[in-house]
């Protein structure tokens, strides 16, 4: 079937069709535009963590990230001074993470293999990577490690290793934040959650349009609604009647004003609450006679 002039008429009519836009929409949209990568690293870690969350490896993954991130520079410096005592220190550095060791044996194995390898980076770059506290000690490392200096390194290492745990905790908090962000996102995409929050009141399911003055019309009262529109359809989905707001009702007639037979019909309500959120529901309404 080729499009005829009938189709073309519609196509032409809507070619440049525009409509007024509720300014509220831009407010909503604007809030959800992804913040683009001004600082690429930050956004990478964010999306990284987010994907991990979705993958469901949340806690373990965050800890892994923290451990890898935190332990790498340390290992590098330690490997540089190849003296035997340092090897002991490596174990000490890893020690606080032992609880994780159970969870992540593979990761630790990887770290161990890294230990055996000679340090790839020159001393100067490693110094740059280190936090201020370790600067002194690693600079001293260049002068070849003597006993007292080693103890200094040891202390700084321990000092540093404690915060690792804190970092992990912080990451957990961060996760909570993230999940709450996700929750709000989910709310914004509407669906069932919102419907729970919205009080639909008691919508009747039968009425008797026989002009006896009792229950002759189908009315809807929505305590939470700022505005609503109700649509009545027959079971084939044909729209029979529509109204807006609490003053409207359905008298059991079709769009042409003719009485409809008894039986089941469908109502569909779209309501806006005082916060401007949209809620929808549907149900059945029977005409009894």
């Amino acid at each position, binding site marked *: 079937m080729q499009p005829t002039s009938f189709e073309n008429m519609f196509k032409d009519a*809507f070619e440049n069709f525009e409509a007024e836009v509720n300014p509220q929409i831009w407010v909503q949209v604007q809030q959800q535009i992804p913040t*683009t990568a001004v600082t690429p690293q930050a956004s990478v870690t964010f999306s990284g963590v987010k994907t991990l969350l979705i993958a469901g490896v949340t806690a373990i993954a965050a800890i892994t990230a923290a451990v890898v991130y935190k332990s790498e520079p340390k290992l590098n410096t330690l490997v540089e001074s190849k003296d035997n005592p340092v090897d002991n220190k490596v174990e000490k550095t890893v020690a606080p993470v032992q609880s994780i060791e159970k969870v992540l044996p593979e990761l630790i194995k990887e770290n161990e293999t890294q230990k055996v390898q000679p340090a790839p980076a020159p001393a100067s770059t490693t110094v740059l990577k280190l936090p201020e506290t370790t600067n002194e000690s690693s600079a001293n490392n260049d002068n070849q490690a003597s006993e007292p200096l080693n103890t200094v390194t040891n202390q700084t290492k321990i000092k540093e290793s404690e915060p690792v745990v804190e970092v992990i905790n912080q990451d957990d908090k961060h996760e909570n934040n993230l999940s709450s962000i996700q929750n709000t996102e989910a709310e914004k995409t509407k669906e069932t959650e919102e419907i729970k929050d919205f009080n639909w009141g008691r919508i009747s399911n039968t009425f008797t349009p026989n002009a006896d003055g009792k229950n002759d019309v189908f009315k809807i009262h929505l305590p939470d609604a700022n505005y609503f529109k109700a649509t009545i359809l027959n079971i084939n989905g044909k729209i029979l009647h529509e109204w807006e707001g609490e003053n409207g009702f359905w008298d059991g007639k079709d769009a042409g004003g003719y009485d409809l037979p008894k039986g089941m019909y469908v109502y569909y309500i779209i309501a806006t609450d005082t916060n401007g959120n949209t809620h929808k529901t549907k149900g059945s309404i029977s005409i009894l006679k």
Partner: protein
Amino acid sequence: MDEQQLVTNCLKGDKTAQKQFYEMFARKMMGVCLRYSNDLATAEDYLQESFIKVFGKLSQYQFKGSLEGWVKRIVVNVVLDELRKNRILFDSNAEVTDVLQTTDDVVSNMEAKQLLQIIQRLPTGYRTVFNLYAIEGYQHNEIANMLQISESTSKSQYQKAKIQIQKTLKAQTII
């Protein structure tokens, strides 16, 4: 500023550019959303979802073809997704015999706003297929794919939509 520059600025996080981009298409896309819905609130929902998606996907825009076409495809996809979520029903009895005479002259004299009202009064299934076929210009096999229905259902829905529109048009000219 050309479209490419505008998109680039939007991606950089330039808020003015993002607003400009939105204003460039919002009114037109609202027109599209209205055609696919039967009330304002739903159309506004569609529009909002669409633009959130548009900005989310903007980095994927290849600068091929018209930007407006790209935006509109996203809008239509969002609408269809929403319809799928609400599980609209397409009645699939394909027998359509009742073909009315065309009322082209009537259509050509009508404003888009009046036509919109007629389209909005169609059952959702009819309306969706009618939009996709008559206005967006998709073929029935494409529509069948998009809506997960058979090609014959798409055709019969379209025929029924057309008949109902023609009936309405006739009634309106009599009045």
